[in-house]
């Protein structure tokens, strides 16, 4: 079973189908790899027994000739903000350190129903708030490409686990870039679906008008496979969209000749590292060779997106996090009266970034400031969404842009400067504000060998075109196949 960890989901699925190996063997191999790479901090919990049990069930399902899917027996990991009705769901927070969800998120339920094996829950910034995974109460994730650097966030555990081959693919969540930024930092392919594509039932709420669950994997075709399993209307989430879900995996082949790809001039700015700019221009050159037409477009309100985002998000977060009161579940501090019980439990349970956002949110929602900050930000949001609509309505089919302004920074480099941390999201937050789908994929390495990613942004609910363009790109490039040299692999 040497090199199996390098296989993508399609290859694993085929191997399982041909009985070249069993799901149990595959699962055991990943569990061993996980045990050897604990220093990376990718996982917050590993389900040694439950995963083997699920793998045995998948093997039995195949042996009995029962109905199987391409994902039956395939092991995956999920971000620890998505609930399962077993194990803990910590959200990277002390407050929920021992929280055992009584129910399973719809996205996870759909994967389980398809017969996947869940290896464990991955590390994240507390409640998804962060861009470096340093806001996890259980320690940061280290970037497998350079362990002195961040893996990105907030889905840093999922990205690093895929990069270090500690799972073939994983689920992440993206509120302002939390799938795409760590994907770019770790040389992974990750999709932030259109808002409403994936049910948020069982996803612990952070900023409800923006949060989306999405796949992270070795390539676009793996993301397509997971997407067709988890996408679609769910009665338990009234914001989940009724739009039909294409059978992505059978529609990937497409000649992209004549496809119009827009490059927003506002994204090629001073803050963008020159190495990233040149990697993206080379990537665009590849797409041009495949017949795509590259055009410049303008998204004039880009500059205001981060400001609007850091009003809307704390507002929604402060409201969502008011449920953590220490009464019904989670951390409860010792206190003599109810008000001190709330305040002490929350203060002991939440980390600094969460407190910061709760305070900002409380400020922008308070009576005297609501219009000046919150409503103003929502108006700016409308303008940002309109920029994209205009670009898509006349000029282009897809927009291509850098995912991040820099390659992964050092652990500790930005922890004392919240604004410089927030500005790491300048290229990802506009997409969430506009509710659009966006896929980040590897397109190069800088002079020190650190990965570079770029994102393809699509029309609302047009994930298909993103998969097709990314798949065409990945058929002619090998960036996505590169893996970091990791130290201890004692397996065969």
């Amino acid at each position: 079973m040497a090199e199996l960890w390098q296989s993508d989901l399609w290859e694993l699925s085929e191997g399982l189908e041909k009985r070249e190996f069993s799901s149990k063997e595959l699962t055991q191999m990943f569990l061993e790899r996980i045990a050897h790479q604990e220093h990376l901090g990718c996982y917050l919990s590993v389900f040694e027994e439950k995963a083997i049990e699920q793998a045995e069930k998948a093997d039995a399902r195949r042996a009995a000739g029962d109905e199987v899917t391409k994902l039956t027996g395939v092991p995956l990991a999920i971000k620890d903000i998505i609930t399962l009705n077993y194990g803990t769901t910590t959200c990277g927070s002390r407050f929920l350190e021992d929280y055992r969800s009584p129910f399973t998120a719809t996205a996870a339920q759909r994967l389980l129903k398809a017969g996947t094996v869940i290896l464990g829950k991955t590390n994240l910034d507390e409640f998804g708030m962060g861009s470096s995974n340093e806001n996890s109460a259980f320690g940061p994730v280290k970037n497998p490409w350079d362990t002195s650097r961040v893996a990105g966030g907030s889905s840093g555990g999922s990205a690093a686990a895929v990069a270090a081959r500690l799972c073939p693919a994983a689920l992440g969540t993206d509120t302002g870039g939390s799938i795409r930024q760590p994907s770019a930092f770790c040389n992974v392919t990750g999709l932030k679906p259109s808002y409403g594509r994936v049910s948020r039932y069982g996803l612990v709420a952070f900023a409800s008008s923006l949060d989306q669950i999405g796949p992270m994997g070795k390539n676009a075709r793996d993301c397509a496979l997971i997407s067709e399993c988890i996408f679609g209307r769910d009665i338990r989430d009234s914001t989940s969209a009724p739009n039909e879900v294409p059978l992505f995996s059978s529609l990937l082949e497409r000649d992209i000749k004549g496809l119009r790809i827009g490059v927003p001039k506002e994204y090629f700015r001073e803050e963008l590292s020159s190495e990233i700019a040149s990697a993206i221009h080379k990537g665009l050159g590849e797409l041009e060779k495949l017949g795509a037409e590259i055009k410049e477009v303008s998204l004039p309100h880009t500059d205001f997106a981060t400001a609007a985002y850091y009003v809307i998000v704390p507002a929604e977060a402060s409201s969502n996090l008011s449920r953590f009161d220490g009464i019904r579940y989670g951390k409860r501090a010792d206190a003599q009266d109810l008000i001190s019980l709330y305040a002490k439990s929350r203060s002991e349970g939440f980390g600094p970034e969460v407190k910061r956002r709760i305070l900002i949110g409380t400020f922008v929602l308070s009576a005297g400031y609501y219009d000046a900050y919150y409503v103003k930000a929502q108006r700016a949001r409308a303008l940002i969404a309109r920029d994209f609509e205009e670009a898509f309505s006349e000029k282009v089919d897809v927009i291509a842009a850098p995912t991040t302004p820099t390659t992964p920074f050092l652990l500790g480099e930005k922890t004392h400067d919240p604004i410089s941390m927030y500005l790491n999201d300048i290229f990802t937050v506009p997409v969430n504000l506009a509710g659009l789908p966006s896929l980040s994929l590897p397109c190069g390495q800088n002079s020190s060998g650190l990965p570079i990613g770029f994102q393809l942004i699509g029309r609302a609910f047009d994930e298909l075109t993103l998969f097709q363009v990314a798949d065409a790109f990945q058929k002619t490039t090998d960036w996505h196949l590169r893996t970091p040299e990791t130290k201890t692999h004692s397996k065969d």
Partner: protein
Amino acid sequence: MTTKANVENLATLSRLLLSSEEKAALTQEVDAILTYVEKLNELDTSNVDPARQVHGVKNVYRKDRLKASQLRDRLLELAPDREGDFIRVPLVINQDGE
């Protein structure tokens, strides 16, 4: 130094207790963040409606029907302090009824 927000008051409203170091750091950080987001004032938004969400799905009502929940015991087990089927909390109303 005058600051945009009274962090102590915000903390009370948010049910958070802050140490004096936290208060000092957060006063500065909150101020810097608010200064940053005030960049939005450069935008003319007089003819723009606020966007609360962007994908246009409308609220759907469903029938208000009673359904048995299988989760009752598991939900109770999560309570940090309980007495039988009740969740125990500190005294909410003074004993003299105030």
